[in-house]
Every structure is written in structure tokens, then in C-alpha cells.
């Protein structure tokens, strides 16, 4: 049984203000999350694949869709194609409520799609979520 308050998050977001706002929201709830940040999809993947990161579990990924460089959809595409990473939990956090974005995201089996406008609610949800959830093993299940 892991310490729920130590859930690792990987925030994939390019906007500095949005990063700041998220961190503030977490802090407001006194959550002790480890928040890593990647400013685009490429950086996020590099981080996830970094052998120096030896963790028991993969971080919960909070993904923005509109990023320069590799955007959210492209990131998801590559993520789900990677056997060692496809198990990762992804929550989409974006400004776009476009049905196309939603469809694409859910087609890649995101755990949830959220709009940034209610940041507080999202963090509240994360709190509940991380308290009860069983996280997957890092590195995924190797095919036998």
C-alpha cells in the first residue's frame, strides 16, 4: 500500500500560467503530489522513457492538447503504440470542447477529458481518484 498523497503526476502543458495555476490549485488542497512538467509531447515521452526514472509506477499524465511541437493527440498516438508505456493513465486537460478532440482522445482510451475552466473541480476529483485507485505497474505487463 502506497502513500496516496505521493502520487506522481506528469503535467504535459506549454503555457506557464496554466502550469502555475495548476500547482496553486494542488497547493490549495494541501496535496503532496510530485508534479513533473513537460512542455510538449516529445519532452514528455523522453521523460517517461528516461531510464534514470526508476519508479514503481508510471505517473498519472495530465495532458494538454494544444501544444507547439508534438501536440496532445500525437503524444497519445505514440504513447499507445509503445508497449512499455501504453498502460499509462491519461487525463486530458484542455480548453477545447470540440467534439473532434474528445473523440480522438477517447479513441486513445484517455481516462477522462476535462476543461481547464474548472481547475478546482479537477483537482478535487484527482484527490478522490488517487485515494482509491489501484495504479498500474510501471513498465507495463511484458507479453509472455
Amino acid at each position, binding site marked *: 500500500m502506497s502513500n496516496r498523497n505521493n502520487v506522481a503526476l506528469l503535467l504535459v502543458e506549454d*503555457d506557464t*500560467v*496554466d502550469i*502555475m*495555476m495548476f500547482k*496553486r490549485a494542488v497547493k490549495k488542497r494541501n496535496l503532496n503530489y510530485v508534479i513533473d512538467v513537460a512542455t510538449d509531447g516529445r519532452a514528455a515521452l523522453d521523460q517517461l522513457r528516461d531510464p534514470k526514472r526508476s519508479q514503481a509506477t508510471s505517473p498519472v499524465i495530465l495532458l494538454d492538447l*494544444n501544444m507547439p511541437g508534438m501536440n496532445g493527440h500525437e503524444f497519445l498516438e505514440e504513447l499507445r503504440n509503445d508497449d512499455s508505456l501504453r498502460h499509462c493513465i491519461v487525463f486530458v486537460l484542455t*480548453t*477545447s470542447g470540440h467534439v473532434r478532440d474528445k473523440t480522438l482522445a477517447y479513441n486513445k482510451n484517455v481516462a477522462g477529458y476535462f476543461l*481547464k475552466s474548472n481547475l478546482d473541480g479537477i483537482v478535487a476529483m484527482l484527490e478522490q481518484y488517487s485515494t482509491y485507485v489501484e495504479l498500474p505497474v510501471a513498465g507495463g505487463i511484458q507479453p509472455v
Partner: protein
Amino acid sequence: MWPMASLKSKIYAGFGITSVLLLVNGVLGYTGIVKTQESSKSIRDIHKASSSVQIIDRDVQELRLSVRRFIQDGHDSQRQKVLELISSLEEDIEAAKSHNLDPDSQEAFLLVSEHLRGYAEQFDVVMEERKLRASLVQNELPRLGQSIDEMFQSVTQELSDTSQKVKFIEAQQRFASSQKQLLRYFTNPDSTLANESVTELEHSMRLLAESLNSQNSTNKADIQELSNKLQDFERMGLRAVQATRGYLFLVNVLMSGEASEVAHYSKSLMRMTNKRRADLSNEVKTATEKTKDTTQLGIILVLLVALVLSSRLAYLIVTPISRLTSTFKLLAEGKTRVTVPETNRADEIGEMAKAAEVFRSQNEQTQTLLNQSRELSYQLVKHSEDLKAINEELDSFAYIASHDLRSPLRGISQLTSCIVEDDDSLKEETSELLSLIQERITKMEDLLENLLEYSRAGRVEIEPELVDVHMLVSDTIELLNNPNKVEFIYSEDLPKFVTSKTPFEQVLQNLITNALKYNDNTDGGRIEISCQTEGNRYLFVVNDNGSGISPRHHERIFKMYQRVGNSQVEGSGMGLAIVKKQVESYGGTITVDSDEGRGAKFSFTWPISLQEEIHTTELREAHV
């Protein structure tokens, strides 16, 4: 053939010639038939003539026979018959004469009539003689004979002298014998009998004369009377004999002669008529032969002429026409590489060919125009495609722009909030400044939202849904802030129809909201919403009695970011621009009828059925 004449005249000439020939043929045939008819009539006439002559012949035979019978028997009925036959023969001769009008026959008939007349006259005499003889033989002679016999009886009785008696008896016997001979003569007129009768009678008279001399006076008178009677008898007898001889002579010689003449002439008439008939038969035969030959020739001639004319005309007409027809067919298909035949002729076909030439050059022109128009059309399509691309670019630009512009705005807003949140010790002025910043940020966000909406309004996404306009209006009104209690008037009859709900809602809600926003009447404010059907579109009208819009602004208000009127009223200025864009993208129109202080009436049309819209959109997208 005549190279300069038109086809029409050639055709007419051809028909004319053929018709004339046929007519001539017909006339010839007709004439021939008429002639034949006449000849047949002549033959019939001759037939009648010959048979009438034959009748005469027959009649003559009959007449002779009847006369002989009459002579023989002397009966009245026979006499009557003879007279009848004579008169009927005369009639027949007249009839025959009228049937045989040639001079020879007429002469013959005249002679026949003459002889017949002679015959008849003689017969009259014969009749008289026969009558006389009949009366003598039947009446007077027997009577006299009888009286003589009686007298002989009485005188003989009176005689005393036997030798006288014997003489008287002989005389009586001789008389008897004479009477007998006479009777035998009248039965069978043989002259010897008559002579013998006379001889006997003379003998008798002589005997009486002898006895007369030796008689006394009393007997003398009687004997004289007897002798006179015997004389009378002789005279009568001789008269009767004479009569008989007379008519026999008439009959056997004269009449016979006349009858023979008649027979002769009738035979010659027969010969003449037969000859005429034979001649006529020949004539008819030759005439019909001639007609047949002429008609045959005529028909062959006509056929040849017709054949020649028609083949010539056919060559002149049919071949060129079929060539021109195939040329026209090619031209009708729109071909231009066609050589038009027969253009150098001077007749109707030449005219047609020239027309075909014109047709051909028209075709060329049409082809050129077609090519040009195709080129233009292609360019048009290309331009439209370019436009479409530009439009799409603009749309996505608007979308992206607004989206990307909103992102930093949001950041600014959030940071401003953070400042306020984090620092309790802010000065009041600082707080106010920050608050003003927030206001402007919000404003900017609204503007961008509207811009985004406007760009979205350009996309026609057909998602048919059932819209209850009445319910839509009442729901909209409920959500509005209506402090002045403006009255809303709208009928229950507002339609329910299937259309794109979102854009339609947007338009109607916008107009209603505007009407309320700009209605400055604190009391008695009224907004009326109505609907009419105009063909295949609904005409919706939102009418208010608010402040109104001056006509010089009527165009401006539909432009982006334009606001007129009361500046206290909150608004982005995009509402009507978005409405106009939506209405027009569904093929409708929006108009305003308003003046300052007179309120405003906004009318827009919306399609009743989206089928047309789908179709129109497809068309638009296909062409653009």
C-alpha cells in the same frame, strides 16, 4: 434536262407530261369504246332490220297459204284472216322500212309495197269472184237446178208422146249430168269437166228445142220456160265457171307473180342486210383491233415516259436529298468537319445545301463558343475553388485566431486573480486597478467569443431537429431580464418544423433579445413575434415599439462590431452580423423596417424544408 429550271417546275412538268399522256390514253380508249358501242348498236339495228325482213318473208308465205285455203274453202273467217295478214304485212313492211334506211333497201321496200298492193287489189277481185261463185254455186244454181228438175218432172208428166217423154227424160238426164259435171268442176276445177257440163247442157237444150217444134201450145209455153231456165242455168253455170277461172287465174298467176316479186325483193333485202351486217362486223372488228393497239401503244408510251421522267427526277432529287439528309444528321450531332454537297446547284436542293452550309458554320461557331464557355467555366470553377479555399482559410483563421488569442487572455485573467487572492495587504487603489484590468479582460474575452461565434456561423452543418417555435419563443422570453414588463405577443400558430435547431435558435433569440434590450419604453412596451408562409420559406417577423433605428444606419447594423443607438445598452455589436450570416447561409434574407422613435421590425426568411438546403448546399459545394 433543263438545267436552269427549279426542281419544282421540273416536277410539275413531269407530272404534267405524264398526266397529259394518261389523258390522251384515256381519251383514245374512251373514243374506241364509244365507237365500238356505236358499231354494236349498228349491228343490233341491222339484226333488227334483217329479222324484220325475215318477218316479211314469213308473212308472205303465210299469206299465200291463207289465200289458198280461202280459195279452197271460201270461208269468211279465212277471208278475214287473209285481209288481216295483208294489213299486218303492210305494217311489217313499214316497220322494216324504218329499220333499213339505206336507199337500196328503201327502194326494195317500195317495190315490195307496190307488189303487195297489187296483190291486195287482185285479192279484192278474187274475193268478189269467189263470193259470186259461192253464191251461184251454193244458192242460185241449186235452186235453179231444183226448179228445172221440178219443171222437167211436170212437163214430162204432161207429155203424151212416149218418144217425147223419152227425149225429155234424156234431156233431164243430160241436165242432171251437166249439173253433176258442174259440181265436180266446182270441187276440182278441171276445164274438161266444165266443157262436158256445157256439152251436156247444150245437148239437153237441143233435145228440148227439138221437142218444142212438135208440141202443142200448152206444153210449148212450159217447154219454152224450161228451155229458158236451162239457158239461165247455162249462163249461171258459165258465169260461175268464169268466176272460178277468173280468181284461179288471179291467184295462180297474177297473185302468185306478185307474191314472187315480193319474195324476190324480200330475199334481196335479206341479202343486203346480211351484207351490211357482215360489213359492219368487219368494221367493228378492225375498229376494236385498232383501239386495242392504240391503247396498248399509248400505255407503253406513258409507262416509258413516266419511267424516264421519274428516274430522272429521282436522280435529280432523291440522291441529293439522301446525301443532304446524312449531312444534316452529322450537323445535328454537332459535327463541323462536314463537306456540304450540292451547294452549286441553282434549284431548291441548292438552297437546302446552302442552308446546310449556314448550319455548318453555325455549328462551328457554336463549337467555338462551347469551347470558350468550357474554358471560362473551368476558370470559374478554379476561381471558386480558390475562393472556397480562401474562405476556409479565413474561417479557420478566425477560429484559430480567437482560440489562440483567448489563451493568453485567460492567463492574464488568472494571474490577476492570483494577485488579488495572494495579497491581502493590497491598497484600495491597487485593488481597483486590478479590478479594471479584470473588466477589460472579460470584455476582450466576450469580443473574442463573438468573433469565434461569427466564424462558426459560416459553417452550415445540417442537423435536422424538430423545432417548436412557440416553445422556443416562450423559453427565450422566460430567460430574459424584463424589468419594464414589456409585453410579448405571439400566436399559438407558430410553426413546428424540422430544421437546424442551433442556428435557427441563435437567430430568433438574438432578434428577440435585441428587441427587448433596445425597448426603452418604461410603460406599454410591446414586442410582437409572428410567422407567415411564403412559398417554401417561413417569414418570421420581430416587431417592437422601441426606440427604432434611423434608416441611414440600416446597413451598418448588420456589419461586424457595429453598434448604434443607446450606448448604455450592453452589447458586442456582433449579434446582427452573426444573424445575417446565419440567415444567408440557409439561403434566406433579413430586412429591417424602422425609423427613429417608430420602433423596429426585423423580418427574416428561413427554409421550411432542409431538403432544398441540403440540395443547394451540395450544389454549392459541388460548384464552388
